[in-house]
């Protein structure tokens, strides 16, 4: 009897109710967003268009509406959702690994690396595929550089990792500046600047699949390591004393994070603050356990970026870069969260 009771207690610790609620909000947000946009498509038409993809039925909507929903909005919403979930998972994992709620995917230099790769690709070519490939490749190169700089005598301390991340980040930022400096100011420069600010405007199903693979793969690895991330957050020595292979575990997680962040930058440019704010918010909601924080962050992150993108594409006549909105919202919200949660969910050292 006691064992059954124990098992039930353990299960409720993972808050199935909250998961269902957040998952429902995500699905509803996604569906509702299909109806939002400058071109008006009523919700009933959206429902019909989606259903007709699976079931044969007579249309009560126009073919233009079907194209807008199926070919423009749906891939864009999927892309925003995948990016949001990925960034939030990456951020939650990084905060655990670095034992610090103030780090985001930027800290390990991957975003800057990917940003340079993308900017350089825009400079030398028109190819979208090259852009994605270069952004992804340089993002992964950044983590290799961080790895190389930070390791001393076969191991890397947290401090060395952070400093190596800053160095790598600064170097690639300088390269981005070089790219901008040499870019044609009438043609290439605006393209680079706009891309760097982040946008889902160029979403397509090809892009969705291309990005979904690394993001889902990386997130799955992180999710499978959610308990190990708890242990890593105790600090190197304690984790090692508890029998965890610290170096190996940390680098597997960091590689997965780099995979996610590079893919997101490749698809949508640099979108800051999501990886920082969302896990922090999740932690306030349900406590610090990464076994819960990681999946919850994914749900909240996806919902959040879908709504941010709704604002980006509808607020004014022109597209607003997503990165601008996430920063405008993220910075003050983060400041507020910091003040509210001082010593709640995490403690200062």
């Amino acid at each position: 009897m006691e064992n059954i009771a124990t098992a039930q207690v353990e299960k409720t610790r993972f808050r199935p109710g909250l998961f269902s609620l957040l998952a429902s909000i995500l699905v509803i947000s996604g569906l509702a967003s299909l109806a939002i946009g400058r071109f008006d498509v009523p919700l009933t038409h959206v429902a019909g268009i989606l259903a007709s993809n699976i079931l044969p039925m007579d249309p009560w909507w126009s073919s233009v509406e079907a194209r807008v929903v199926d070919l423009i909005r749906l891939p864009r919403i999927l892309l925003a959702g995948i990016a949001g979930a990925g960034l939030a998972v990456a951020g939650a994992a990084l905060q655990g690994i670095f034992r610090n709620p103030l780090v985001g995917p930027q800290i390990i230099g991957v975003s800057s690396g990917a940003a340079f790769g993308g900017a350089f690709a825009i400079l030398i070519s028109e190819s979208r595929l090259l852009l994605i490939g270069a952004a992804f490749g340089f993002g992964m190169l950044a983590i290799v550089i961080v790895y190389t700089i930070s390791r001393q005598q076969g191991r890397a301390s947290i401090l060395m990792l952070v400093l190596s991340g800053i160095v790598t980040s600064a170097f690639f930022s300088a390269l981005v500046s070089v790219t901008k400096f040499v870019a044609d100011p009438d043609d290439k420069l605006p393209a680079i600047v706009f891309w760097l600010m982040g946008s889902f405007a160029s979403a397509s199903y090809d892009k969705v699949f291309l990005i979904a693979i690394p993001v889902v793969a990386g997130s799955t690895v992180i999710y499978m390591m959610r308990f190990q991330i708890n242990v890593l957050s105790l600090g190197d020595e304690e984790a090692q004393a508890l029998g965890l292979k610290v170096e190996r575990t940390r680098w597997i997680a960091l590689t997965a994070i780099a995979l996610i962040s590079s893919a997101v930058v490749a698809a949508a440019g640099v979108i800051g603050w999501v990886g920082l704010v969302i896990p922090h918010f999740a932690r306030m909601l349900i406590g610090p356990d990464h076994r819960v924080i990681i999946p919850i962050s994914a749900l909240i992150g996806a919902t959040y970026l879908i709504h941010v993108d709704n604002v980006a594409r509808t607020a004014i006549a022109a597209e607003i870069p997503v990165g601008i909105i996430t920063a405008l919202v993220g910075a003050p919200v983060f400041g507020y969260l910091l003040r509210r949660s001082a010593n709640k969910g995490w403690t200062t050292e």
Partner: protein
Amino acid sequence: MIEVDGLSFRYGDEWIFRNVCFSVEAGQTTAILGPNGRGKTTLLKAIVGLIKAETGTVQLNGRIGYVAQRAEIAFAYDVIDIVVMGRAAQVGLFRTPGKTDYEHARQALAQLNLEQYADRPFDRLSGGERQLVMIARALASQCQILVLDEPASALDFGNQDLVLSTLRRVAEDEDLAVLFTTHFPQHAAHIADQALLLHDRDRQEWGPSSQMLAEDKLEELYGLPIQALEYKRDGQSGVTFAPLYS
């Protein structure tokens, strides 16, 4: 259970200790005493395997549980979630703790009478309770050897007694080999069967607590006069130590 033979360690050119030899049997407790900077923590880390000794061997016949000096964590997990991390070695990469792991964690909490704290956030506990949670985490790994770095040094009198007495009871119940460092000879006198005095990097003394915890040896160790005070009150008797400050 612990057999340390000729252990030496150095940072760069500076030797911290040389040729340390002692052993701890199952069901026995050994205290390590020495002034600041004499290498108590370093010695423990070398024994646990967190750092590599220059020469010498450490033989451990059993799983080791280590309780570090600083009972602080970056995130205020619930107590049960911290204790279950003691199972990290058994859980394995890409896996999460299962029913058995939680059973061991709850059992460890029960051993230390901490069941009622299981679902509380760690940062709401007192210093003594935190230390006990860290011990529970080590016990959850089903260790046969318990190594603790100053388990009671940062605690008030009441919590010192709570942690030390609990430690002694668990060591007896579970037949553990216990090794701990302390700055207080009375802690060693309270629970240790043997004491290791780190006088100098080349000179250590190891023997039964009753012989090691003597005024002259402690005065040499700490460099000031120390008064041993025997007490007998309310059926309790023992010895405690008072430094005579200049």
